[in-house]
C-alpha cells in the first residue's frame, strides 16, 4: 500500500479546467469572440489588429490573467492565515490589509473635502488609487506587526489585526459622513472590486510582487505542516517559530496587499477557497493544498468573472457580489454533503 494518496490525476484535470475556463473567459463578454480569433490574435502584428483582436490583446487577456492571479493569490493567503491562526474563520485580510487599503483610498477620494485641497492636486487616476491602497495597507500592516512583536501569543496578533480593522473603518465612516454623494459613490465603486482595469504594464508590476509572495508561501510549506500540530509541538520539532511566522505574514501581505491595491477589496474568495479545497481533497498537507488552492482559486475566480461580465450585454456586475453569490452556496453544499467540517 502506498503511504499517501496520489493526486496527479486530479491536478491534471484541474489544470485542464483552468485552461478551458481561461479561453471561455476571454471569449465571453459584451461581444462573444470565437476561440479561433483568440488564437489568431497571438500571431497578428499589433499594428494590424482587427477590433476583436485589439479587445482580446488589450482588454480581455489582462483581465483573465488578473482573475487567475487574484483567485489563486487570495486563496493561498487565506490558507496561510487559517493555518497560522488555527482558525477556520481567518482570511487574507485579518491582519488589517483591506482596512488599511480602504483607508488609503478613502483619504484620496473623500479626504479632499475634509482636509482641504491637499489631495485635489492628485488626480484620481488608477495609479493614485493603487498607491493609496498600497500605502494604506502597508502602514496598517506595519503597525499591526510592530504591536504584535510585543506579544508572544499568535492569537493576540489576530485580535490586534481585527482591532486595527475597526479603527480604520471608523475613520472611513467619519470621512464618509462629511463627503459628497459623488465621492461616496466613487468610494463604493472601488469597494466593489474590479479585475478589468489593468493595463499590461500594471499587470507586470502586479505579477512580479505576486510572484515574490508565492515564493514565500512555497517556502513555508514545511513550517505550515508542522504548525498543524500546534505551536508547542512545532517548536519541539525544531521549527524557528518567530521566523516562520514572519515569513508566512510577509507572504500574505505581499499577495493580499498587491491584490487589494490593483483589484480592490475582493471579498469571500480568500476565506472560501481553502475550505472548498480541503473538502474536495480531504487533506491537511500543504504540499498538496498550496497547488490545489492555486488551481481552485483560479477556477472559481474565472467562473465568477465570466458571470459578472454578463455575456452579450453591456452591463458588468460588481465582482465582489458575484464571488459571494457563487462561492457561499458551494461552501454550504459541500459542508452539507460531507456532513463534517474538516480543518
Amino acid at each position, binding site marked *: 500500500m502506498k503511504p499517501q494518496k496520489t493526486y496527479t490525476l486530479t491536478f491534471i484535470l484541474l489544470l485542464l479546467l483552468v485552461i478551458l475556463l481561461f479561453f471561455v473567459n476571454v471569449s465571453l463578454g459584451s461581444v462573444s469572440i470565437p476561440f479561433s480569433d483568440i488564437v489568431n490574435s497571438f500571431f497578428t502584428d499589433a499594428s494590424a489588429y482587427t477590433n476583436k483582436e485589439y479587445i482580446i490583446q488589450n482588454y480581455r487577456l489582462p483581465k483573465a490573467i488578473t482573475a487567475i492571479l487574484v483567485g489563486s493569490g487570495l486563496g493561498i493567503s487565506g490558507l496561510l492565515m487559517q493555518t497560522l491562526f488555527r482558525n477556520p474563520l481567518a482570511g487574507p485580510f485579518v491582519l488589517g490589509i483591506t482596512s488599511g487599503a480602504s483607508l488609503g483610498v478613502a483619504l484620496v477620494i473623500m479626504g479632499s473635502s475634509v482636509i482641504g485641497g491637499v489631495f485635489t492636486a492628485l488626480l484620481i487616476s488608477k495609479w493614485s488609487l493603487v498607491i493609496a491602497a498600497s500605502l494604506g495597507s502597508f502602514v496598517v500592516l506595519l503597525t499591526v506587526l510592530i504591536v504584535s512583536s510585543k506579544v508572544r501569543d499568535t492569537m493576540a496578533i489576530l485580535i490586534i489585526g481585527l482591532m486595527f480593522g475597526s479603527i480604520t473603518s471608523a475613520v472611513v465612516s467619519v470621512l464618509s459622513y462629511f463627503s459628497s454623494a459623488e465621492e461616496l459613490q466613487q468610494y463604493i465603486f472601488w469597494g466593489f472590486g474590479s479585475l478589468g482595469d489593468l493595463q499590461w504594464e500594471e499587470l507586470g508590476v502586479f505579477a512580479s510582487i505576486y510572484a515574490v509572495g508565492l515564493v514565500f508561501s512555497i517556502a513555508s*510549506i514545511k513550517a505550515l505542516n508542522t504548525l498543524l*500540530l500546534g505551536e508547542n509541538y512545532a517548536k519541539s520539532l525544531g521549527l524557528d517559530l518567530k521566523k516562520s511566522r514572519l515569513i508566512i505574514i510577509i507572504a500574505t501581505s505581499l499577495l493580499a496587499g498587491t491584490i487589494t491595491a490593483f483589484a480592490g477589496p475582493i471579498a469571500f474568495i480568500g476565506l472560501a477557497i481553502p475550505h472548498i479545497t480541503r473538502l474536495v481533497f480531504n487533506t*491537511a498537507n500543504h504540499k498538496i493544498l498550496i497547488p490545489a488552492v492555486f488551481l481552485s482559486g483560479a477556477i472559481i475566480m474565472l467562473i465568477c468573472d465570466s458571470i459578472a461580465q454578463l455575456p452579450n450585454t453591456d452591463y458588468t456586475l460588481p465582482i465582489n457580489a458575484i464571488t459571494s453569490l457563487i462561492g457561499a452556496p458551494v461552501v454550504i453544499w459541500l459542508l452539507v454533503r460531507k456532513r463534517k467540517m474538516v480543518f
Partner: protein
Amino acid sequence: MNSNSHNIILKTKALSIGYRSKKTEICIASGINLTLKKGELIGLVGGNGIGKSTLLRTLTNVQPALNGNVFLNDKPLQDYDNLALAKVLSIVLTEPITSKNMSIFELIALGRQPYTNWVGTLTEADTNAVNSAISHTNLDALKHKKCYELSDGQLQKVMIARALAQDTDLIILDEPTTHLDMYHKAYILKWLKKLVEHTGKTILFSSHEIDLAIQLCDRLIVMKTDSIVCDEPCNLITQGVFNNLFPDDLIVFDETTGSFRVRK
C-alpha cells in the same frame, strides 16, 4: 559517579523553576538536583499545582529556568538551538493537536521534520523510521485512518509513535494517561515500560497514577512542597515518602500494597 557519567542523559544542578515577569519572580521549586540515566522509565508524581508541568516545561526548554542549570547529554540546555534539541528530545503534550485531518502515517511522519529537507520530503530512511515507530506501537492496521476517527487512547499512542519517529534518546510526556479509562491507563504505562526495554530510550512522564507508577517505573521523582526526591519506588516506600504526599484527612498510603486507600 564519574565512571557512569556517560550513562547519564539528563542532569539538573541546583535548578529553580517558576515564572518571571518584569518585576516579580514566582519561584515554584528550587534546589532541584536530578539525574536521569539512559534506558530508564521515570515517573514524576505529586499533587495538583505542585509544579510538575512547570518542571517538565523547564526541562524541555519551553520556559527558562530561574536559576541553576539543566544538562542534556552533558551540554547545557540553553546552548541547544531548536533544531539540535529536536534531535535529542521529543515531547508528548496534553494539548490537543490543531488539525485532525491527517492520516496516522502523515502525523507520525511529522516526527521526521528535524531530518527532512526544506519542503519535508521523506527519504527512504525517514519512511523506515516512521514504519518502525508504527510497528513498535502496533498501529499498522490504523495507519491510513484519519486522526479524527480515533479514540483518545489510540490518539495518545499515535502521539507517542510520533515522538518515537523523531528518534531521540529522551522522550518526555506530560500526563499521558489523562482522559483514559483505568484499563488504558495501565495499558499505556505498561507499554511505555516495554518501549524502554526494547529501544533503550529514556522516558520521563508525569502522572497522577501513583499506584501504577510505583509498580512500573524504574525510578520515581516525587514532588512535594518542601522537597523533591528521586529514587527507586521500593526505597521511596520504605522511606515513607508517600505517607505525607497528600493531606491525610481523606486518603492514606498503604505500604503493604503500595497504593492509596480512602479513609473510612
